[in-house]
């Protein structure tokens, strides 16, 4: 089982659309796939037409009173399941902290300490059932995001092509570099790229060449991607022969190759 997480401290950079589209493409390629919508806003759940509701809420899941398995919903697509969002996820930091307190070594202040590994532990039983897990992370720097970074094998970082985006990536790399033991791979990619803007062109071309952790594929800013929330489906389903679908397919191909390359090196 390989765990991918879409993460960025900023909101509105294309995390959810990326998670939804890549999870769909992973499933389409034959991988048994599950997407966990960790964002209390429930955008990914909405796009799969699944109600953002988990029985017992996030508390029951995080405390282990209800197995993660129980919360899984089948999507309309082969090989693709979803763990829906729930509004109680807004308190997930507290839940993670509470679930991990009461014994053991490693405190919440240590990067990669015990509370930060709770999500990874919850996901472990799914290993027999799934080949790929996608975590759609809320925009924040929190215990939730630290958990996601701890659980993931690959962090997908959507970047808007601005000069600040480089700084974001470096900060994230430095943070992950502090982890003891497990350290996820980082794969950044440019999202919402507008080729008409000179700055976008320059930054994407420069960084794609200079930085190995930046994907060559860029996701353009296209209205068809925005209509995902109207169609409530991955873009490959309702607009299969478009530049948007081709871009996501390219990104998925690169992501798979990236994973294989890293796992063999």
């Amino acid at each position, binding site marked *: 089982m390989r765990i991918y997480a879409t993460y960025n401290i900023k909101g509105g950079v294309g995390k959810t659309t990326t998670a939804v589209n890549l999870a769909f493409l992973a499933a389409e390629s034959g991988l*048994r796939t599950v997407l966990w919508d960790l964002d209390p806003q429930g955008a990914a759940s909405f796009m799969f*037409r*699944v*109600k953002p509701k988990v029985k017992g809420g996030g508390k029951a899941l995080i405390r282990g009173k209800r197995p993660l*398995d*129980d919360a899984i919903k*089948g999507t*309309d697509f*082969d090989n693709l399941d979803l763990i829906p969002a729930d509004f109680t996820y807004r308190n997930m930091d507290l839940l993670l902290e509470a679930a991990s307190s009461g014994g053991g070594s490693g405190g919440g202040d240590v990067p990669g300490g015990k509370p930060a590994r709770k999500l990874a532990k919850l996901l472990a039983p799914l290993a027999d059932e799934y080949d790929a897990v996608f975590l759609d992370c809320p925009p924040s720097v929190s215990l939730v995001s630290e958990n996601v970074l701890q659980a993931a094998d690959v962090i997908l970082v959507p970047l808007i092509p601005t000069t600040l985006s480089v700084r974001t990536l470096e900060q994230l790399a430095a943070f992950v570099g502090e982890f003891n033991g497990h350290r996820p791979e980082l794969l950044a990619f440019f999202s919402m790229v507008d080729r008409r803007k000179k700055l976008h062109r320059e930054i994407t071309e420069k960084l794609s060449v200079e930085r190995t952790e930046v994907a060559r594929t860029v996701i353009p800013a296209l209205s068809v991607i925005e209509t995902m929330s109207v169609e*409530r489906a991955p873009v490959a389903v309702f607009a299969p022969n478009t530049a948007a679908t081709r871009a996501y397919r390219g990104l998925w191909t690169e992501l798979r190759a990236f994973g294989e390359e890293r796992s063999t090196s």
Partner: protein
Amino acid sequence: MTPAQAGFIAGGHDERGWDETVAGALEALGTAFDVVPDRGGRPAAGRRTWLDTFDWRLHRAGLTLEYAGRPRGGELLLSGSVAQSASGIAGVGGNAANAANAANAANSASAPSAASVRNPANPPTPANPADPAVISQPLIGWQAARPHLMCELPDGPVASRIGDLVAPRALLPVVTVSNATTTHRLLNEDGKTVARLLIDRASIPGPHPAPLAPRLAITEVRGYAGDARAAARLLGAAPGVEPAATSTYTEALRAAGRRPGDYSNKVDTDISAGRPASQAAATILLRLLDTIEANIPGVLADTDTEFLHDLRVSVRRSRSALKLFGDALTGRDGLTEDEAGRFAADLKWVGDLTTPTRDLDVHLLDFDDTARSLSAAKPDDLEPFRVYLEQRRRREFRTLTRGLKSARFTGLTRDWRDRLTTIRDGNPGTRAAPARSGRTQQAAGETTGTLAMERTHGAFAKTVRRGAAITPESPAETLHDLRKRAKELRYALEFFAPLHDRAAQAKVVGELKRLQDCLGEFQDTEVQVGEIRALATAMLAAGEAPAVTLLAMGEVTAGLALRQRAAREDFGRRFAAFAGIDGQRRISALLRGKPGR
């Protein structure tokens, strides 16, 4: 990942009636869901072939094996026993495992947690590979239309589960259906697929395809068990829709005119004690002739070794039956002495015709075990011996097939059937002609009960007498002769089994079987040693015997000799257990119709 299924069948007498039922079902579901055809309503086509051995070994073990053909490759699906679901809800194909799952999914508040429709585009199969009660094994290049020996089936979960059960028999296609499955998605108010309706239309392919009643199934989407249950309730209440009480396999067998278990090498007849002995004798021999003839195509096609084995056993049983009660076939409309002599001689000829091939089959069937059991020699040392055996078998098999296609053989089976049918259906004779053995008993005028008692007792007494005369110094031939007598007794017990108390019969047969096993081991090992020596000589003469092979063959014969000695040492104990006072009581109780100890 299991798509739990609630299965139904469309009522109606013809395709028009079925179409009306399906339309009504869609309308019923439309009251609660948006019903949207998948793939624009285009059906997914498939082909399903069920497999079993000629003697229905899988069926008898409560197993169902299906080959589901797919555009690229296919897979074998092995499921549990076919049983009727008490709730009337079954898998779309209706096997027991799915029936249980479907019942759980449709009736329980907590549907199986691992229930998710993974492959809605594929035709529904009764044995869904994601069902934990189903074992699946992908196959590439498998031709389901022809028989396959187990050694042709690649290693895998299905092969390892059925290997010992099936071998040395071949897997044969029992029945095939072509099917076309249409999927409809059932959507909730958010436009989310919460269940699926699968409509499976199958038919037996051929110049005049025989359509089967359409099957309708609700499959659950993971996390939406309640919606699937609601859909199943609506579907079940739709006019003309009935719970699927039988599997597609059962329906297909019925449509193809097959009955599970329609072949057995058992002598299962409906003889009764009060019927004339001549009719019972003819009935038993006709049943044996049925078995002989049923195996001919499999022998000629060399499908597996057991066709020849069953044929030989039936010939041997027929010869023993003639010895035991051939005189009962004489009398008015019965066999003349000349006829009886001709049939007996012809049956012996068939037996002799089949012996060389069967002997080589036995060597080849045991070959791998024998090679593995070598201690001094290496298994590979024996390979030239295997090659030689296979060559010899090919030659002997040609002789065998020529014989079975000969006018003598076809004349034998035709005339034998004619005469036996006349005797069975004719008036029983009251005046017996002298039998070939010289017996002048009025056997043809006896009742079956009297005949059974006399002849079974006679066979028992003869076996006891011959066995009691055997001492540690007796030559091997005396044990071989005793083996024949014991076989005759065993056959007599089998022929007249319908007249006996089953428990009493089992007690007699139990001890007799142990004695036969001992005698069989003694003689078979001796025969095999003799054959291996003869084969070694022939191989040497043909220049096909490397020294290491001869040494390995020597080790094999040494092993056989040890087994023979052990069997001889065991004989006294086995015979005493069979023929002692308890054995006498058991046979008396059986023949008097009272349970013995």
